[in-house]
């Protein structure tokens, strides 16, 4: 089995910001072409800042743990700051993940960008 850091396992065991959000301002849903996993991210935005974020994940330990870490990293950031976060930032934050699990953090970033895009699209229409 893969070696996971204590921090990642902690987030896996007790995920932060887990669940579906009522009336989100943006939703990102990403499927993982590599192993078939799926992540959903919901954001609430106020004054260009992500004030609340929630996630759902169908995936492995790394995918669940990293989604949870991502929500902590992103919460309170402006949309521009959030956009700048990369998969390697998340991996670093998680205390390293096995190379074969790197794509699970890419999934998180894609879902985040998807949610931000979705928010912007909705706002244009308003």
């Amino acid at each position, binding site marked *: *089995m893969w070696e*996971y850091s204590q921090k990642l*396992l902690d987030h*896996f*065991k007790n*995920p932060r910001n*887990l*669940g*579906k959000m009522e009336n989100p301002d943006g939703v990102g*849903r990403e499927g993982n072409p*590599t*192993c*078939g*996993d*799926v*992540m*959903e991210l919901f954001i609430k935005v106020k004054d260009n800042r992500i004030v609340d974020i929630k996630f*759902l*994940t*169908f*995936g*492995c*330990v*790394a*995918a*669940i743990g990293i989604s949870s870490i991502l929500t902590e990293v992103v919460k309170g950031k402006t949309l521009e700051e959030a956009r700048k976060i990369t998969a390697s930032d998340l991996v670093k934050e998680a205390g390293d993940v096995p190379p*074969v699990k790197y*794509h*699970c953090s890419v999934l998180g970033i894609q879902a985040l960008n998807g949610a931000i895009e979705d928010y912007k699209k909705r706002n244009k229409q308003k």
Partner: protein
Amino acid sequence: MKRIYLDYAATGPTKPEVLKAMEPFFLQKFGNPSSLHSFGQETRAALDKARGQVAKFLNCKSGEILFTSGGTESDNLAILGVVFEYYHQAKNKPHIITSSVEHHAVLHTCQYLEKKSEAEVTYIKTDNRGLINPEDIKKAMKPNTLLVSIMYANNEIGTVEPIREIGKYIEKVNKDRDNKVYFHTDAVQAIEYLNCDVKYLHVDLLSLSAHKFGGPKGVGALFVKEGTAIKRLIHGGDQEYHRRAGTENVPGIVGLAKAIELVVRDKSKNEKIRKLRDKLIQGIGKKIPDVILTGDPKNRLLNNASFCFNFIEGESILINLDLQGVAVSTGSACSSGSLDPSHVLIACGFDHQTAQGSLRFTLGEQTTKEDIDYVLSILPDIVKKLRKMSPFGRKNVGV
């Protein structure tokens, strides 16, 4: 924390009696069986005795047993050995029939021959329980068919294949053919639980591996029926009737033979294992919704309980169980180095997402009722928790 091992299909502990039988062959009886002096004669005698014990178990002659480094080598030697031996005799490229649910030791060996253009291969499809229909082997038979290789029992889902029926059919076919069709079975998972009499099964080659039935790791055997020629893969000395060079792993071979002896002696434990396995299957079915029992409900190894849990992924179930002391395995893509889902579950017709939720429990001699009760007490909450996290599982837990 109590640790509960439910992954016996992967491997198990070496039995204390086996270890005890092996011990003298490290410190006192260390001679090389090829040496002519008394040290060598001592280990030669032990080797002969072990070969006799294995032969008795399989109901064959001592000279039909080759010791190897395990199940993988036995499978490789059976397939490559037969193909390389007969390659030059055949008018056409040899044809192999195998199935899509075989262990990688068989599948990848066949694919290797295909890639090297040394054989053509038909992969028989199974039904959704992983069962092979012997009629499909009949249909796949060609004039240039040289080898049929079908596993006795599946390591992931436990399905038991109709080896005897296939063996009898091939024997019949051979009466009307000039070029014989050889029949190999990978019996690595079968030794403890199924009849492995090679005459009953009508097989020409049979693979086994010691660590799957209480013996040490890194030692196995291949039954090669008299009159079946195979090309050696390992070149060097004259050991194993010139068919597998290298100084014999004497302690390992002695351990393998002792473990086989215990399989026969301790047969009665199997009913207890079956009962516990049934309790596990029934308990999971009762306590957890949206679970599929994979493999054949009846025709399966008595220690195997394998499932797909809908809406969630296997590695995350496995790690949750491991954090609470329970060791199992999964065929999920996320857990494999290649990120491919179990080829066995895909062959059974499950979609990728369902296969992701696979989990295998395999019981053994040391499994107790308390172990099963404990699993049944923690698993429902683990599944519920993961379904709450899943974008697919929401409506199932009312979130």
